[in-house]
């Protein structure tokens, strides 16, 4: 892992168009600003990992389970808005 030391308001460039800026350091928290093209998605790692795990758990359920699911309906009291 590349390790760089930066102060508040200093930045790091990743490639030619991603700029990561340290905005504020307070105690054990660091506020970071990220400028990146729209094609690059930026997420907190733990949220993204949680979504990966959720997608893997949901992927390709057994076909037997699907038959039962097709009969499941929304609870009637929640059907109408």
């Amino acid at each position, binding site marked *: 892992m590349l390790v760089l030391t930066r102060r508040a308001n200093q930045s790091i460039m990743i490639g030619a168009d991603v700029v990561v800026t340290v905005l504020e350091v307070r105690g054990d928290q660091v506020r970071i600003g990220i400028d990146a093209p729209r094609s690059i998605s930026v997420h907190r790692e733990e949220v993204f990992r949680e979504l990966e795990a959720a997608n893997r758990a949901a992927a390709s359920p057994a076909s037997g389970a699907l038959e039962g699911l097709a009969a499941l309906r929304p*609870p009637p009291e929640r059907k109408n808005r």
Partner: protein
Amino acid sequence: MSLVDADLPELHFASGLPGFPDARRFVLVRLGDELSPFSVLRSLDDSPEHPSGIEFVVTHPGLFFPDYEPEIDDDTAGRLELQSSDDALLLVIVTVADPVAASTANLLGPIVVNRHTRAAAQAVLGSSGYATREALVPTT
């Protein structure tokens, strides 16, 4: 309660889905009869783990979670070229459980589809408080 057109053409996820970055082309197929609230999102791209393609069960969140009104971030909206919320079809992925009544929906990462272009992405609602496993039916 028409969730999807049976002949909805291919959906294109330009950057795949988290965990499945190579799954880009999907079709949406109804699961069960026409009253079924569920559809299957079926990948047309195979992967080492799923040689015959990946499938996800999806549903219209409004059917099970009438109060669910996620705010789609500007980046997702921009990437999908959504001009207004009318352009977007919102789906959520269902984790099928045994028994099926214990199945859950992923409200943290809804699937957003541009109805006109069929461009699609899984949004990541980082600070929304929504969870990846919300019960479809109350557990009382």
